[in-house]
């Protein structure tokens, strides 16, 4: 088991954003988390990556409890994520964003930087190689030196996945990777995600609203509603589950 969440709850001033959720993410799978707005999906991601502290419950990653650790320490253990509102370093260039994504693999420190020592040179060479490789992987080699602000919405989404991907994490949490994109761009991102788990062999957990894409991608689906898990299963099982259809689409679709 790669990641295991046990009885996880998060309360904001008495309001349960997430209530007693338990789930497992297996190595090499694509797990989709779906649910209406406000179901607690992003809260779950924020708890896993350390941006929020759980009110109660445990998060085990590779057998170790990581609940409450700082985000940069969790990132170092191999959990990468993207954000719903595309988060990038928008004052910097495409290559700089990727290099920052790879920072956690750098080992050199302050004095190595000042004296350009050997470990600094090695880190720089390794970073350059990885940036180039990732640029090709996400299809942005042409835009390597462009400022992020000049990229299209779809390119920014791809870059944000690249920033998460470049550190070679064990799992990537994708928060609505195609939110706000048109159909063609959505298909491109879907292909990119497939490439990540098939070629790079990285486990993926994604939050997504586009059911067509979820059905196409996910091995397993978990449904949240009002902070609680209401269903778990294969895409076929979920698409036939009356409780899910009611929560997600409204009762009239049941007819």
């Amino acid at each position, binding site marked *: 088991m790669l990641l295991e969440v046990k009885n996880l709850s998060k309360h904001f001033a008495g309001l349960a954003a997430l209530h007693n959720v338990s789930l497992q993410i297996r190595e090499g799978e694509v797990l989709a988390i779906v649910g209406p707005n406000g179901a607690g999906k992003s809260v779950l991601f924020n708890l896993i990556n350390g941006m929020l502290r759980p009110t109660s419950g445990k998060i085990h990653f590779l057998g170790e409890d990581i609940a409450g650790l700082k985000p940069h320490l969790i990132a170092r253990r191999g959990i990468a994520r993207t954000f719903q509102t595309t988060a990038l370093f928008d004052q910097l260039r495409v290559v700089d964003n990727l290099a*920052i994504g790879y920072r*956690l693999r750098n080992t050199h420190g302050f004095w190595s930087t*000042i004296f350009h020592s050997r470990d600094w040179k090695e880190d720089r060479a390794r970073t350059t190689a990885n940036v180039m490789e990732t640029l090709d992987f996400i299809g942005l080699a042409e835009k390597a030196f462009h400022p992020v602000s000049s990229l299209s919405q779809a390119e920014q989404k791809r870059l944000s996945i690249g920033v998460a991907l470049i550190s070679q994490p064990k799992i990537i949490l994708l928060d609505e990777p195609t939110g706000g994109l048109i159909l063609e761009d959505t298909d491109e991102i879907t292909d990119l995600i497939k490439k990540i788990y098939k070629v790079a062999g990285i486990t993926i957990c994604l939050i997504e609203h586009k059911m067509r894409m979820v059905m196409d991608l996910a091995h397993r689906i978990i449904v949240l509603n009002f902070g609680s898990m209401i269903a778990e299963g294969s895409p076929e099982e979920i698409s036939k589950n009356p409780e899910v259809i009611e929560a997600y689409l409204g009762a009239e679709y049941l007819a």
Partner: protein
Amino acid sequence: MPAIRFLLKKWFYVLLLVLAMALPFLITNRYYFQIVIMGCLFSITTLSLNLILGYTGQASLAHAGFFGIGAYGVALMTKSGISFWLALPLSALFAALIGFLIGLPTLRTRGSYFAIATLCFGVIVSIVAGSWIEFTGGYTGLVGVPHPTPLPLPIIGVIGFETQTAQYYLVLAFLLLTLLVMHRLVYSLLGLSFMAIRNNEALAEAVGVNTFAGKILSFVVANFFAGLAGGIYASLVGSISPSTASIDLTFSWLVYLLLGGAATLAGPIIGAFVIPVIMEYLQFLQEYRLIIFGALLIAVIIYFPRGLMGGFSTLQQRVREFYGQRRGVKHAVRS
């Protein structure tokens, strides 16, 4: 020949350096030359303020406080007979250490809260300097701080620092050292993570950058150089007082930085030279010249958020985009 190729590629910087070396022979007026020396010294403080404020995005207003710590350190040590060359690094390290201790609580706050907390520290330093009479001489300050101890060098012989020319070369050497360290920091992966903190702290943290450690490092290095400049100042000017650590100095450097161009390396130096010169020319306006600076500052912040150098590089970028110039992926990562 790599040396010749280097000279051809960096001819502009080489020219600047030659010009800087020749400056004592070009400027004969002692008063103007003193302005140049102060320009070099305040370039060091503005460059270091630039590291924490311009590159790391944390508006420290305690900079003159650390300048003052360095100044009092060198003044007290050299007056008691310790060599300047030992007193200076010790004082700068002491400023860095205090910076570390002050950074631990204040860097946990963000934005204007950090600015206010550091502002308070800056004010406290000058109050302590004014009140701790046995140690700092109170508001009269310390006078008779010796000039830097003569430096014995191989081949050249012993260099004294009594003349303005020698003092200028001393300050220029430390400015070049500061510039070298800043250049290495800024054009590095470490510098990128400083900029990542400035740009989006939450994302930087999520991709594995230890943002708190980054801010502390940037703050400590900035305060080291503030202390260093303060130490040189004390020794060259010969007398210091609580006004050496006053908040007015911090705000002067802030103006140099913002007008010259934050988050550039040339900007702080341009600011530290151009603005005092403009101030000199506007002497006849007396205190009214501050109104002009106020208006100028507002205009620059609105229209050129990255100052003179920022405006210049935006222009350069537009031209480059116009010609569609593209460099190879080989230079992918900032070296």
